[in-house]
């Protein structure tokens, strides 16, 4: 497989981890959509999830914890011809990177934002993440988590994100399809993937997710209030595409005024600079 080329051989995830499934789903999605690996960039942060682009044969920007989204946005606007995927963990995207999450949604670049939501900090060995459920005990949260869990879908809908979906990696096929939809969608697309962390999250296991999720049926993703209701109601977590707004222009369309040329082709117009300087003599 093309996407297996040129990758780090030693995959550092734990056996049984949901990350493997996500890798598979993503690679299949790219394959089925026939992407040229050279035109794909995965931008990630730091964490277990963030190691993803080490193991996929596409361009990689493995940046700082929490900072994948501004990097991804800049890459997309600097070269709108690239498929740009920003991928990382729940701590990375919703914790350290929370401010970028909000404001990237406002910007609406045509990127796919994949979040491995294992409700825990994996790489740093099991502290609570923003999505950890109340009462979840960890070596730091010794009496259990006391903060309200962060609801990424509700927040994204509140900010009128152009595509909001959730999947569970127990269902790789479904996840792959959702990722494909997200890629096809024009504009910012959030794919929050529920992913068991077999090492540090003994609460939100494969079984737990199976029992606590359901597939959306007959859902109208253009209905924002309904989407909000689904995203916030108590009980089982919905899987599928919650919300889509097709009527949004992307950041790069607006910032580049439709120009799609990569900025690396840019040539300086020294004549114009001269003109400007001459203006300053008047």
């Amino acid at each position: 497989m093309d996407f297996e080329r040129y990758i780090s051989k030693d995959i550092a995830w734990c056996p049984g981890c949901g990350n493997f499934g996500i890798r598979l789903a993503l690679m299949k999605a790219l394959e089925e959509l026939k992407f040229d690996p050279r035109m794909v960039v995965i931008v990630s942060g730091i964490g277990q999830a963030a190691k993803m682009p080490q193991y996929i044969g596409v361009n990689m920007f493995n940046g700082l914890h929490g900072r994948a989204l501004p990097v991804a946005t800049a890459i997309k606007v600097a070269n709108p011809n690239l498929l740009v995927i920003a991928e990382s963990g729940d701590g990375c995207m919703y914790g350290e990177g929370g401010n970028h999450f909000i404001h990237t949604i406002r910007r609406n670049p045509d990127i796919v934002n994949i979040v491995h939501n294992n409700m825990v900090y994996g790489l740093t060995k099991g502290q609570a993440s923003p999505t950890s459920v109340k009462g979840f005990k960890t070596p730091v949260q010794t009496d259990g988590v006391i903060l309200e869990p962060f609801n990424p879908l509700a927040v994204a809908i509140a900010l009128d994100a152009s595509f909001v979906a959730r999947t569970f990696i127990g269902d790789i096929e479904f996840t792959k399809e959702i990722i494909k939809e997200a890629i096809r969608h024009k504009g910012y697309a959030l794919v929050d993937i529920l992913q068991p962390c077999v090492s540090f999250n003994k609460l939100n296991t494969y079984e737990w997710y199976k029992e606590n999720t359901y597939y959306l049926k007959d859902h109208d993703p253009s209905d924002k209030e309904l989407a909000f209701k689904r995203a916030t109601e108590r009980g089982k977590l919905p899987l599928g595409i919650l919300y889509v707004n097709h009527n949004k222009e992307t950041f790069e369309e607006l910032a580049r005024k439709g120009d799609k040329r990569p900025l690396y082709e840019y040539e300086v117009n020294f004549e114009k600079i001269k003109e400007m300087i001459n203006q300053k003599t008047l």
Partner: protein
Amino acid sequence: MKDICIVLSGEAGQGIQTVEYVLTRVLKNSGFHIFATKEYMSRVRGGNNTTEIRISSERVRAFVEKIDILIPLGKNATGRLRDRITRETLIIGEESFIKDAGGEKIEVPLLEMAERIGNKLYANSVAIGLVSGLLKADRETLKLQIRKQFEDKKEEVIKQNIDAALEGYKRGEELSGRIKVSLKRDDAVKKECLLNGAEAVGLGALAGGCNFVSSYPMSPSTSVLVFLAQNKSDFGIVVEQAEDEIAAMNMIIGAWYAGARGLVTTSGGGFALMEEALSLAGMVESPVVIHLAQRPGPATGLPTRTEQGDLNLVLYAGHGEFPRVIYAPGNIEEAFYLTYKAFNVADKYQVPVFILTDQYLVDSFYNLPPFNLDDLKVEKHMVKTGEDYIRYKLTENGISPRGVPGYGDGLVKVDSDEHDEFGHITEDFTTRVKMVEKRLKKGEELKKEVLKPKLIGDENYKVLLVAWGSPLEVIKEAISDIKEVALLHFSQVWPIDNSVAEYLKRAQKVIAIEGNATGQFANLIKAVTGFEVKERILKYSGLQFSVEELRKKIEGVV
């Protein structure tokens, strides 16, 4: 030097900036050399702000304390200038504005004159005319500049403003006998341009091929952001106001990764938030250009004032060890050329390059010949990748060919973790050591491109002044008449090389002049050369040095 120093003073919102803008153009286009600088409070209305305009027969480029003519544009506009007003200072304006001041007062009812013509609001035009008349500036030029200033307005308003200016001019001419200095004019000046430091940095960025700016507003650096935003359509630049400084810096690194040439403009506090990302640039070996306009800290400090307090900050910013370049332009020409150069150097060595200015430099302007662009060139060091491209190829000098995604057949993998030549994460200790050395080698290479410090003044100096950045022109003027004194000025403050010690050892006395409280550059010189610059003239009030205070202090030690 023959010159006249005019100070405009008023509340924020009273239009000093308009007066300054029009007046400096009128005067320059009348053939005078001019210099202007402002100091202002961190507020939108009220308080007290001033602009100084020096008009001279020769080139003039530095702040002086003396005030020959003071034009208060409102009440309570003279109090803060008390120490600068002497018996010779002419204070001209409304009775109620000038009454509390010392100096030689000349009442001119600007408001009444304006009202007579049509509207109190024209008072500023009267003031512009008044000063123009005092200096016998060119009347046609005055009319032209007033027209330009109000070109968006209705013809009637334009006309009335011109009338107001001409009224002022008349009154000014009548008073011109009161001015003892007579200035020569030089037609060549008319062809020169007027630019402030911020515009020079902006133009330098354009010439350096900058096509991506992301920043978060912060005084006094915002003017560069504004300049580039104003010109973005003409140049196809992406200008994005980020949600915070962290996003701004990460965006710029992302932009370079994709092949753009990016700039952030910020101040100390904003930059402090970018340090983790600076370290990222160091690790992924991304070029990045940072304009940092200094203001007094710590923390919020004095947001609209000047200082040279962030040298240590940028020297050691970011965790871990990686090379960087720091330019500190001494004047407007250098602000342009060094910003231009920064982009090529950043691209070539794949390192962060700083332009370290300050509020004084970005907000000051003078006339200067248009920059010669003929030799400027955007040196793109990017390569088209082959199938077997590897991002961090180990080379002799530490520099690996830099590819960008989508350009060529290779994949470009960059990593904030320690990585192998492919860019993949590694924990191999041997690779680690090689990669550390690779990065540091680039620092050694950079020494080959170091700009030597400039020696200005008496070559057979006994006293050597050492300075960096914006005090350049102030010191130059201060020592112009003092014998056996020279200035060694640094426009690049990192890397610097040991040869500097030779200059220092030749002097009987070395004095550092810096706009901070600890002598950061003097300390750096000691760290690099072992030479201790014991005497220091330091200023940290929030104001720039003046020619007079430096002259006095330097004469005191000579």
